[in-house]
């Protein structure tokens, strides 16, 4: 227990939960989530977005409830307490693999955007190295620095929301009618397609132990989630109005293509700015996920954090270099989506039920012993 407690000096204000949750939810998913939802739910896709958001609120509620039972320890610690050292380590290992896959996917997918839009002839590993150097800076400062970075980066990017005005001008919102034409199963499938896009708020499980007054994170977490949900809903509505059905389904980067229409007399193509601004969002996101991975590994085995990070970089470098085509990325994306639905939406409930049962049994046994 003693090794995991964080000195009070290094704890951060619970309000930073907001910036951490928002940055871990918004990534490349925001640039291209419309297609997957629209394929399932048609022009009622916006309804699926709302439904997925509501579900996310429920699972955040469960996450905080579970955490408060375990004195706001990190999820790794909770697993160890519940399933013992070996069982906990196995589950933690699976979680670490998941986060590794997510961060590698985010990194590679963002590099894909860079390759398609700006630098088609730069090798993948060059971008990788650039990211790794910058992520190392954040990790050197720990969660204190990372939370501030994510906050500042969010502020820097937040004005991009105003750009939605330009596609809004030509949007035809008659395309939203007739409302709710899709049946329940289509809407549900659309909701599932939002899984990986809206997931990511489960970083709450890991960061809460670093907060000064951890019981206060509940409100901030819901606020962050609400902001992200509104953002996704807005982008979805504008996209449905702006595009025709077949266009939205065929386009790989709906948000970026939509912003192609933004032009000023001094800058004709604004999406290049958006792509470069997205760099800092992706960077903050990768800092958080790398931090989560390193926390998990150093808890399991006694290795220096620096060495873990070097190993992590090497593994990611090899994987992103191996993923060469869009098809491979799509396979990884589908896989992550499925896992994310389970880990972000269902696992908090499962964990809560398991915790109740196991703790209940232990309590009863203790009473019997007495």
């Amino acid at each position, binding site marked *: 227990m003693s090794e995991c407690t964080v000195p009070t000096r290094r704890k951060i204000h619970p309000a930073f939960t907001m910036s951490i949750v928002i940055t871990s939810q918004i990534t490349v998913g925001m640039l291209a989530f419309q297609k997957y939802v629209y394929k399932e739910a048609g022009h009622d896709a916006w309804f699926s977005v709302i439904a997925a958001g509501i579900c996310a609120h429920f699972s955040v509620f469960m996450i905080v409830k579970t955490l408060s039972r375990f004195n706001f320890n990190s999820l790794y610690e909770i697993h160890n307490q519940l399933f013992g050292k070996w069982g906990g380590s196995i589950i933690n290992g699976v979680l670490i693999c998941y986060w590794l896959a997510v961060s590698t996917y985010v990194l590679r997918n963002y590099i894909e955007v860079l390759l*398609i839009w700006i630098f088609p002839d730069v090798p993948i590993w*060059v971008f990788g190295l650039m990211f790794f150097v910058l992520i190392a800076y954040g990790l050197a400062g720990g969660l204190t620095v990372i939370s501030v970075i994510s906050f500042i980066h969010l502020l820097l990017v937040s004005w991009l929301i105003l750009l939605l005005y330009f596609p809004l001008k030509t949007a035809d919102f008659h395309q939203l009618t007739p409302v709710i034409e899709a049946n329940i199963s289509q809407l549900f499938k659309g909701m599932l397609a939002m899984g990986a896009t809206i997931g990511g708020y489960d970083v709450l499980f890991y960061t809460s132990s670093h907060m000064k007054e951890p019981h206060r994170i509940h409100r901030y977490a819901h606020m962050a989630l609400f902001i992200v949900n509104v953002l996704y809903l807005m982008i979805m509505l504008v996209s449905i109005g702006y595009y025709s059905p077949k266009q939205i389904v065929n386009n790989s980067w709906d948000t970026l293509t939509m912003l192609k229409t933004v032009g000023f007399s001094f800058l004709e*193509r604004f999406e290049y700015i958006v792509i470069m601004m997205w760099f800092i969002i992706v960077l903050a996101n990768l800092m958080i996920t790398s931090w989560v991975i390193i926390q998990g590994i150093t808890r399991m085995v006694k290795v220096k954090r620096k060495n873990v990070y070097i190993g992590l970089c090497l593994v990611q470098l090899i994987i992103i270099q191996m993923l060469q085509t869009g098809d491979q990325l799509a396979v990884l994306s589908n896989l992550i989506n499925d896992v994310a639905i389970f880990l972000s939406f269902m696992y908090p409930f499962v964990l809560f039920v398991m915790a109740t049962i196991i703790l209940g049994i232990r309590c009863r046994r203790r009473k019997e012993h007495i």
Partner: protein
Amino acid sequence: MIIRIIRSRRKRLVLLIMVLVLCIGCARQMIIDKLSIVIALGYDQSQQEQERIRTTIIAYHATDNQAKNTLLTSASNNTSKGVRTKLNLKMPTQDVIGQVRVIAYGEPIARKGIITLTDTLQRDSDIGTNVYLAIAGGSAEQIMSATNKQQINMGEYLYELIRKNVNYGIIPSSNLHHFLSTYYRGGKDPVLPYLELQQNEVVISGVALMKDDRMVGRLNEDDCLLLKSAMGNYKFDSFELALSLKESNHHYLPRISPLFITLTNIKIKSNIKLAQEEGPVFDVRIRVKGQLKEVSEQIDLEKRETIHALEHAASRQIAAQYEVLFKRLQQMQVDPIGYGAVYRTSVRTKQFATEQWRDMYKHARIRTDIKVVFTNVGITS
């Protein structure tokens, strides 16, 4: 201890510089003086048997001579992107396509279908969606190699010509995004401006009506305005109407035919609603507001009744013209106004195919409700 820190710092610095150097070395150099910046593209049917497409480009490249910085060249191949390989063999400078503003399709190729040629544009992240598409009467090469009196670059000339008429004039929006979104939307057909060479001058002589991606007909300038005004809310500079008052029973108006009136600063609001699913029947509601600036005969405009009678006559005239236009569009089986799209968004139907709509469109009827209001007739001075 201190030495160790310096060492590690130096190491970090070296690592950073290494990364930076790598980045500089990897991206391809693009020096603006050594680029040909393509402004306009033209696609034509190739004359040769073994090649499909002839592409013409107008590019800008920096030279010492200001008057000769435009480059016009063309080549043929089977795909539009494949042509670039051949074009590069003709040009000493690297061509870049990010600044393309106008893309013209020759009429013969447009009559066969242009979707494969526009599809490649949306796959290219370099090309923006604000590019204007147009149909060139004769061939695109002919239009693009014409000269203009201002002696400016022909690509820019076409761009400004189309842009002005789309933004403030009677040409419906024709940029790449609008073309594609209309093409992919069930129950609506795209329209593109029709460029023509008249007395060695390039003019927009109307719009080309597309059925899916094939050009099937043309509308002249007068119908353009009616067409655009039915497509949404727009503002126009001016609008001339020929009123026939011969059989009119207004005693406030002279029995002259035709009486020409011109409105300026026009604001048009239009709305289409599905009135009956069976049929189908549509309600078309158009409100025209404008200043009456010119009348071809001396009429006393002091009386309110005279003005009302004129407004009424103008409304009837527009309604009559609109019905004629609608009949023509029905005969050609094209739906640029998007009645099909209105039908699609008003009826809960799972299966809505464009083919099916074309059959229904033949029997569709409209009920027009058009009102013209003169906001001002007075003498301003």
